[in-house]
């Protein structure tokens, strides 16, 4: 006999089922041969190509020196590595900091009027004529010494047009940075798994590399709703090329320290994704040439926006309902009675489809986070940051999702900072 009951929870069952399916696909692919081979691959280089790393800067006086110093410490033949620092019309002390490196034999410095990040990147590409591989690093990010060797080793097939690194948060201090640390650990695993089957739609700003030939074949960076890295990756995918990942290539970026800063960054990312995926690259959705991207990754990325907002609304409704009920009861009987302790009894275990599926999903997410940290050998304390992630993420992420959807729907312009 089946004993089931209708409840408002029924509305979120489809979301839970789809999330579970996504995680199951992730697991199967993680255990499949392509991902296994990627993890086993060593950073031994048979060929040492010329590499140029472009650092676009706009008002980054506090971090740019550290960024450049970490690049100069890369374990890579110096004659094969050049750095191009581009001041995109900074109004702070960035030009002076950059000029301190002007005499360095590996470094080229360029000052230009402010035109946006993509213009700085394109000028850098024009100056990197001798490079076979061109990489980019945001001026608030720092790299591990062996990361470039890992990246170069990942260009192991002619159709690999770009390679991404494993990003994590540099010295997380505030609650929001700690939350991002856990989130980035999850992203490391996701990027690793989906790169193994060519399912990436973004090669992020911090330490992504391209073959120089890519820019001659499909063109330079565009404004692309302030998501130039995402747009370029979608263009690479549309051209039938591949985006790889070097999981042990570690790069550390300064995460936004406060909620307003984080909100601005995430709204820029999310609106950039929505506008590129829904308008300019709509043909990638459902595309059968790259089924992983077209039929799984992009639809699920869109679903994550809708699902995230729906789950938040559901959670908010439940919280308000229970909150009002508790307040009402607290006005009726003493507060201590409402929260008095009761002996454990299995009869009252709150095991429902929602709680059990939700717990399974969360457990999976924690495992993926730990795997991301372990496989990439990223330093830091994950357990504490996961705890902060649990408390904060479900509250703050829906805010930028709702704001992004609203901005896209209303055509609101998104600022960089």
């Amino acid at each position, binding site marked *: 006999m089946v004993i089931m009951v209708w409840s408002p929870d029924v509305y979120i069952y489809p979301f839970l089922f789809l999330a579970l399916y996504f995680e199951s696909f992730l697991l199967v692919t993680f255990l499949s041969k392509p991902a296994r081979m990627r993890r086993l691959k060593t950073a031994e280089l048979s060929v040492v190509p010329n590499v140029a790393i472009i650092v676009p800067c706009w008002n980054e006086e506090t971090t740019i020196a550290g960024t450049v110093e970490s690049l100069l410490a890369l374990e890579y033949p110096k004659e094969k590595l050049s750095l191009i620092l581009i001041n995109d019309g900074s109004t702070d002390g960035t030009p002076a900091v950059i000029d301190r490196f002007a005499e360095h034999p590996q470094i080229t410095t360029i000052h230009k009027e402010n035109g946006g990040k993509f213009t700085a990147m394109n000028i850098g590409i024009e100056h990197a004529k001798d490079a076979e591989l061109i990489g980019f690093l945001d001026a608030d990010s720092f790299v591990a010494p062996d990361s470039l060797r890992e990246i170069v080793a990942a260009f192991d097939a002619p159709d690999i047009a770009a390679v991404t690194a494993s990003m994590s948060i540099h010295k997380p201090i505030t609650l929001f940075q700690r939350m991002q640390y856990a989130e980035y650990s999850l992203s490391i695993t996701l990027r690793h798994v989906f790169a193994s089957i060519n399912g990436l739609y973004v090669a992020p700003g911090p330490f992504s590399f391209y073959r120089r030939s890519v820019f001659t074949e499909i063109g330079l960076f565009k404004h692309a709703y302030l998501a130039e890295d995402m747009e370029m990756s979608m263009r690479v995918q549309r051209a039938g090329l591949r985006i790889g990942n070097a999981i042990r290539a570690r790069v550390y970026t300064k995460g936004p320290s406060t909620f307003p800063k984080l909100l601005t960054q995430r709204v820029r990312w999310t609106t950039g994704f929505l506008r590129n995926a829904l308008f300019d690259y709509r043909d990638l959705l459902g595309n059968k040439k790259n089924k992983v991207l077209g039929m799984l990754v992009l639809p699920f990325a869109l679903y994550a926006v809708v699902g995230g907002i729906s789950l938040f609304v559901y959670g908010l409704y439940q919280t308000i309902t229970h909150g009002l*009920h508790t307040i009402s009861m607290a006005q009726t009987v003493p507060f201590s009675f409402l929260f008095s302790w009761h002996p454990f009894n299995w009869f009252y275990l709150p095991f429902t489809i929602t709680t059990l599926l939700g717990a399974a999903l969360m457990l999976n997410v924690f495992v993926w986070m730990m795997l991301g940290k372990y496989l990439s050998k990223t330093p830091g304390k994950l357990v504490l940051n996961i705890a902060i992630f649990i408390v904060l993420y479900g509250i703050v992420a829906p805010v930028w999702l709702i704001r992004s959807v609203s901005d896209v729907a209303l055509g609101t312009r998104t600022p960089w900072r």
Partner: protein
Amino acid sequence: MSFFARNALIALGITVAIAGTVAYTVNYLNRARITELVAIENQLSIDTLSLETQFSLLETAPCDSVASSSVLTNELADLGDRLAYAEAQLGKNNVQVMQLKKQYSLLEIRDYLITKKLAAACGAKPVTVLYFYSNSGDCSDCDKAGYALSYLNTTYPALRVYSFDYNLELGALKTFITVNKVQRALPAFVVNGKHLYGFTSLEDLEKIFPKGALASTTATGSTSSPQASSKP
């Protein structure tokens, strides 16, 4: 079959297996809850019958069975808690829950009657509270009233609280309502024969209790949760 299709199918299989296991587990737990409720009710039914038989046998000294009666009332309260939880989990339209609720109401009535008999025979003056509620959406204060009564029952375990769903289709309950002259103005309380309709505050509810009834905290082992004896 392509690599993507293979992984997609395996993932679907895993998802269905996990979702199926979860659904089975939840269903298994619900069935176990019902089984436990049935077992408790059967036991209580036997206990009630035993007490009534004891009462008949000990006509010369019926007061010897008072202790057993108290225990029975406490067990009834625990059953009420569980039924309230099961009803919240499985829904108020669940046939089995409704059936169990009817049996529970019958047990309550029988316990109430035997308590009255014992009180008359032994000269005791127990404070009995009959509480009538509705969870059909037509009683906005029933939730608060239930909590207030549970609080009183926990704080003063000597109280004998019996709660009834006014809308339950049960002949004996209809008769019980008629005999006690309870109108359909819920929530309704009958404390030692004194009627109170509606709920405003805990203080107002306390006013209808006999003088001194809420002064003592003589323990009888009753441990009611907020839903206890209020909304089974």
